[in-house]
């Protein structure tokens, strides 16, 4: 291989990577607009090829040196830096050579990989490094064959790279979890394949066609398809018990999610499942024995994680050993409490009050011995207190009367603070927030000096009926004025299932025009009976 051929090969790599870099980007473990691997490698390669375009050098060493310098100047991102080191190693290996034999080319591939390894402080297998090394090994093996040619060495390197890329998920947990192959390694594979395409065309080695590997697999074929939505929760734990029936546990858990793994001994079973309902899985498994090392991760956020060990996530086991259970009704509100880190939800509230047993079951399902229970409705408090005598767990009931109080309490919960400290902080926060609930009168009545007709819009401030009217905005604005809107900053509107888009928009604009100093945040609460619940703080 001489200078002009190597130049054409690199230009071929650039054009092939250019048409495929989006595929590489799609493999990023972190689906965020930051440092996409394919783009970084493409920009680095562009810079590597920049000066070569103008060069008519006959020697391969000169072209390699230009590529090395150009890629170093243009390296972007970690994969780009490593690619620049690959070019650097290659250039060093071919120094002083005007043309390469198949064996020399293979050596240069090996040296390129070595240089890449040296550039990284702690080399990780299952990355572009492994792919570079395996490409070098395959190239060396091909060069040892008596009928070795330059195209065959490159073909072997590309095939070696592809085989290594396909293995990367077995080497790196993070890839396995995301269901993708390593993006940087795949980028390198594309670069080698681009080189191969060009060299094949140049030398028109028809004989090679038989041994040529299939074209680059599209990323969508390489990657396990990612679910469009509903990532669910990656739930893992151990069950400690006696005579555990693995098959039975597996069957039951399979009904609740996918990617199910149930392995172990009759005394200790490891369970892994991706589920939308970790609470049910935990409740089910808790029936078999003691749960250990429980870990529930929200996968939609989990796969964005860059910093390992930051802990404290909703799914990470808490250092304080305190769990939180909340009584909540309404699909949106359930999501909100869950998102704030509540371990188990008891469905219920306004009119369908949950039983003591419902709450007891939820408390027992939580893998902590100390549990804080949020009633979130004054009609639930009594039943909640009954739980205290029915469990060995250390249960505290916080007598939150409303959704806003419950949310304020949960926001104040911290996994690194003792149960007692959390209780004090949560109670204080619950007291601080003001609640306005808006509903329709179910019958004619007189209350708190107000005459109310059935169907009227009524507004309650902290459980007390204060205003009646015909319009949501009017009632809410009166309530806000009574609270003294000037001393507050934020109104959170939890929209119930009975409120239409128009009603919501009108309420928002009514509040804005009467109380322009308040910030308004709308949340889909989905609660029944109360078109609007407002939190004022």
């Amino acid at each position, binding site marked *: 291989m001489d200078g002009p051929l190597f130049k054409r090969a690199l230009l071929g790599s650039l054009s092939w990577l250019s048409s495929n870099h989006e595929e590489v980007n799609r493999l990023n473990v972190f689906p965020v607009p930051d440092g996409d691997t394919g783009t970084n490698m493409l920009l680095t390669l562009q810079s590597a090829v920049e000066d070569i375009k103008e060069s008519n050098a006959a020697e391969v060493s000169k072209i390699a040196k230009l590529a090395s310098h150009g890629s170093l100047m243009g390296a972007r991102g970690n994969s780009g830096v490593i690619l620049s080191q690959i070019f650097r190693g290659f250039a060093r290996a071919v120094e002083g050579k005007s043309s390469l034999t198949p064996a020399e080319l293979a050596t240069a591939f090996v040296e390129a990989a070595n240089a890449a390894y040296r550039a990284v402080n702690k080399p990780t297998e299952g990355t572009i490094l492994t792919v570079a090394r395996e490409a070098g090994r395959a190239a060396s093996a091909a060069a040892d064959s008596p009928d070795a040619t330059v195209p065959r060495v490159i073909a072997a390197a590309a095939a070696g790279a592809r085989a290594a890329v396909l293995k990367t998920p077995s080497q790196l947990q993070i890839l396995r979890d995301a269901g993708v192959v390593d993006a940087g390694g795949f980028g390198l594979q594309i670069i080698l394949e681009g080189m191969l395409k060009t060299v094949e065309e140049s030398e028109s080695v028809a004989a090679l066609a038989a041994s040529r590997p299939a074209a680059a697999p599209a990323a969508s074929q390489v990657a396990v398809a990612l679910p469009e939505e509903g990532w669910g929760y990656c739930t893992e734990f151990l069950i400690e018990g006696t005579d555990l029936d693995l098959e039975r546990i597996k069957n039951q858990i399979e009904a609740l999610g996918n990617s199910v793994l149930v392995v172990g001994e009759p005394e200790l079973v490891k369970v892994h499942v991706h589920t939308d309902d970790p609470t049910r899985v935990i409740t089910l498994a808790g029936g078999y024995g003691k749960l250990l090392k429980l870990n529930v991760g*929200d996968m939609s956020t989990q796969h*964005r994680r860059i910093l390992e060990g930051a*802990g404290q996530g909703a799914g990470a086991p808490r250092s304080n050993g305190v769990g939180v259970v909340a009584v909540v009704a309404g699909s949106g509100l359930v999501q909100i409490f869950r998102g704030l880190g509540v371990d188990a939800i008891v469905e219920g509230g306004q009119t369908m009050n949950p039983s003591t047993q419902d709450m007891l079951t939820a408390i027992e399902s939580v893998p902590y011995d100390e549990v804080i229970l949020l009633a979130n409705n004054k009609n639930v408090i009594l039943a909640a207190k009954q739980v205290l005598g029915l469990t060995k767990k250390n249960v505290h009931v916080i007598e939150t009367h409303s959704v806003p109080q419950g949310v304020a309490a949960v926001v104040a919960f911290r996994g690194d603070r003792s149960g007692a400290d959390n209780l004090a902080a949560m109670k204080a926060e619950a007291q601080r927030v003001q609640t306005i609930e808006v509903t329709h009168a179910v019958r004619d009545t007189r209350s708190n000096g107000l005459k109310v007709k059935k169907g009227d819009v009524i507004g309650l401030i902290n459980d007390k009926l204060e205003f009646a009217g015909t319009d949501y905005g009017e009632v809410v604005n009166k309530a806000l004025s009574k609270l003294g809107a000037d001393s507050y900053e934020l109104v959170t509107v939890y929209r119930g299932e009975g409120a239409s888009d128009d009603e919501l928009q009108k309420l928002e604009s009514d509040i804005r025009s009467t109380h322009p100093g308040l910030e308004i945040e709308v949340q889909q609460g989905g609660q029944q009976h109360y078109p609007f619940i407002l939190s004022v703080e």
Partner: protein
Amino acid sequence: MKRSFAVVTDSTADLPDAWRERYDIEVVPLKVLFGEETFRDGVDMSNEEFFARLATSSKLPTTSAPSPGEFAELYTRLAKDHDGCISIHIGRQLSATVEAARVGAQAVDGFRVSVIDSETVTMPMAFLCRVAAECTTLDEAAAAVEKRIPRCRVLALLDTLRYIEMGGRVSRAQAMIGTMLDLKPLLLVVDREIKPVDRVRTRSRAIPRMVEFFEKDMPVEHVGVVHAQAPEEAELIAADLRRRLPGLEVPVGQIGCVLGTHTGPKALGLVYIKK
């Protein structure tokens, strides 16, 4: 004795305006990319222009480290009139910059570059540069800086988690922020990690919480306030600290474009090196 070595950092140090000249510090810009357009942090675009564009841009910008070649060029230039250089950069866990500096330094023969991974970001890096600049030899500077790295803290109050989450630096779960409510996260950059400290519903309650946390971490050797388009609040916090900590400068710095891409507007930071 005048020091004979150069002090280099990158644009994420958010160096107070006067310090570059006062301590003779070289700043290598990181880059911000709005689609195909690349801007050098603090060079091609002012902070005001950046945040104005961030607010109106439908797609978030991305950020990228300087290239090894850019470092090699700077080191080559510095080698003419210095006998060495300390190059203090944004933590490896957050950016490839320190890696680029290391590779760039290898490309310059016969010039000693001590590349330091600060493990942190924003003004603690500026404090480290000041510590280095006040030393007389490169060895002394490197030792003084290394000793302080574990004591650097960035206490950050974000107005929204949106930007840091989109940038992939922290997930909502990590920040103890639910997926629904718009909570203000208070985060601490320490030991190469971003740890959640607290979560608060409203900004007016979040600032006192930030100061309370800082008070528990006293005494401090250096302290400053950084902000992204929130100068009044930053000055108020700084003035309060100056009153309580006589003898400390308490500089106020602006969060630059690259870091601003991840913090978003209205972020506030209390940054310090513990004693």
